[in-house]
């Protein structure tokens, strides 16, 4: 006797995934409605890491805000520094010395590589590819060593200053960087051999969490996640800031917009970032690393919005000045927050295992989501 599905009493269950869960990449909580293992509905619940950075900034001088920006996307501190200081410089019309500009590019791109390394490592781990966690982390350690050489910190760098950078690079930095860049292709090849070409990994990721370009644009997704949908949009090319217009690099794009493409595009972007760093190393001029800026930074009354291409997408800073020595209002447009907004749409219909892959593939950092 055949039993129709309708005759069976089945019940949807609600599952709180997080804030303590191995694969939510921080203190993120998803309220999942499950039909068996199938995810019917996803609700994002955030705020567990809210520290009120925007409000805190209103009570700190412009320079004192810089360390707070490290704590936004703590995996790419340099990029946050860069976005913030360039915003203030834009408001004050400060000319940054050439050497500082080049150092900023080198550090920012290193940060981008480090952030992408975390993404590929943790996505591999989230499909239980334990061994693939290690090559990216091994190489990332060398980036952090380079940061430590330069500014003493590894994650919360606070390296950029309004008008330049905090310190010049020490001797030994450039050879170490050169060696790192030489070894990077080997790490990428290791990842490709271990994970990217693995049948199980492909089966787990290809076609999972697919999002088409129109929907992605409607949700405001930016960064590698958008480029994985096929749109070659990168602020470094579209609206170059700093001295990005001097470098030659490609914008890798893939067309499927699924988790697999979001993974692969990070590996491709690492190669492009390495290209930029090599050019910046070749063209690195001498000279000071700080512009002559007043001791007390008092931007003129007004407001400014500046955005850069962060590791996860467009990172924007909106700054209002009332002419005093503290920001009147600072708003941060963080890419992780926007990308996370599309997760319910991406994840619905898959099962729990797909959901984990989807979180990993959109690469969120909770420090940036909650601010």
């Amino acid at each position, binding site marked *: 006797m055949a039993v129709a599905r309708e005759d069976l009493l089945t019940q949807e269950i609600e599952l709180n995934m997080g804030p303590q869960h191995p694969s939510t990449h921080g203190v993120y909580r998803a309220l999942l409605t499950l039909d068996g293992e199938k995810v019917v509905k996803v609700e994002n619940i955030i705020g567990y890491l809210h520290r009120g950075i925007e409000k805190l900034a209103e009570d700190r001088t412009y320079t004192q805000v810089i360390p707070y920006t490290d704590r936004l996307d703590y995996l790419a501190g340099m990029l946050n520094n860069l976005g913030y200081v360039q915003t203030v410089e834009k408001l004050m019309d400060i000319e940054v010395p050439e050497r500082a500009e080049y150092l900023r590019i080198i550090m920012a791109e290193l940060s981008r590589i480090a952030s992408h390394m975390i993404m590929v490592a943790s996505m*591999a781990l989230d499909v239980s590819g334990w061994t693939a966690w290690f090559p990216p982390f091994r190489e990332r350690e060398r980036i952090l060593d380079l940061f430590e050489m330069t500014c003493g910190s590894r994650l919360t760098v606070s390296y950029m200053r309004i008008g330049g950078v905090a310190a010049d690079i020490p001797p030994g930095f450039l050879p170490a960087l050169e060696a790192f860049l030489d070894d990077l292709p080997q790490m990428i090849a290791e990842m490709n051999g271990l994970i990217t070409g693995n049948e199980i990994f492909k089966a787990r990721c290809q076609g999972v969490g697919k999002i088409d370009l129109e929907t992605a644009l409607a949700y405001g997704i930016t960064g590698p996640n958008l480029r994985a949908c096929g749109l070659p949009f990168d602020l470094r090319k579209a609206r170059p800031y700093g001295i990005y217009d001097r470098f030659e690099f490609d914008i890798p794009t893939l067309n499927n917009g699924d988790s697999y493409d979001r993974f692969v595009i990070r590996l491709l972007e690492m190669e492009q970032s390495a290209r930029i760093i090599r050019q910046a190393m070749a063209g690195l001029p001498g000279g000071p690393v700080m512009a002559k800026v007043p001791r007390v930074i008092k931007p003129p009354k007004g407001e400014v919005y500046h955005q850069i291409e962060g590791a996860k997408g467009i990172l924007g800073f909106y700054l209002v000045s009332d002419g005093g020595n503290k920001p009147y209002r600072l708003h941060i447009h963080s890419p992780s927050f926007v990308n996370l907004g599309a997760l319910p749409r991406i994840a619905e219909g898959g*099962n729990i*295992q797909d959901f984990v892959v989807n979180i990993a593939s959109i690469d969120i950092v909770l420090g940036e989501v909650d601010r």
Partner: protein
Amino acid sequence: MENIFTGIAAYIKGLLAGAPPWVQTLGMGLMYLVGVLAFIFLNAIYLIYLERKVSAYMQQRLGPNRLGPHGLLQPVADAVKLLGKEDIIPRGADKWIFIIAPVIIFIPAVMVYAIIPFGKGMIPVDLNIGVFYFLAVASTTTIAILMGGWGANNKYALLGSMRSVAQMVSYEIPLTFSLLGVIMLAGSLQTSQIVAAQEKVWYILLQPVAFLIYFIAATAEVNRAPFDLVEGEQEIIAGPYTEYTGMRYALFYLSEYANLVSVSALAVTLFLGGWHGPWLPSWLWFLIKVYIMIFIFMWVRWTFPRIRIDHLLSFNWKVLLPLSLANILVTGVGIKIYQLLTLGRW
């Protein structure tokens, strides 16, 4: 060296010679049980160490290296730590089911060792339906996992135990069918006879496909990566074991490693010639082969990502099952052709 264990057994038997028959049976049974338990515990404890070292080797790490030479005392420290942990029973748990599940899971894990020929003349109970007994007892593990998952009253645990039922029930079928090829060749279910039949040719050479199917299905059967969906850490924390602490948790892990050893031992018995081998004592050969199998299991675990539940099931029903059936057919036809050629009759 060859007769060290059989010698001990004969000595104990000699001591009991004057006693009534039931005391003899009981005494020998107890001796076998103690022997098997010692084997399981020593192996399981050092397998945890081995697993950590193997994974470290594959991941360019050192692994445990602080406690004792090369970290060899690490398992002892782990065991002491687990013993000292608070034993938590969640308030919402179904208390008795929750408590007995780790005990029940350990029983089949020990029982299956009864038919393993550890060496020449070293088989605890030489059942004439040995392989069948192994499969029948091993399949009851599912019940204990389901009990643990259900009793914990935790959604992750429930999801994990449901996965375990789906997975184990499915993979048992190709596992059994893959062994049928060997049984047809040997003409016996008795493990001692299967080993004896492999004196000249190991069955892995005659049944390579069956060995492959057995390896895959056994990986799924003992919940090891890439089929470790039951305790898929990244999705469902630790599956049925989520709420377990201390010694209860350790029992689950112990039985998991005991199962790993037993499926490796069965693979050695049925495909790799059992204890047959030149020069070295038979039990040492058996151990070496078992550890080669275990190393391959570990190698797979630390290389492959985890498969998805629907792929897992469709792979089983659409690939492994037809393949194992085809293997039985080919084996049967092959046996008949062989008989026709050598004996000149069907």
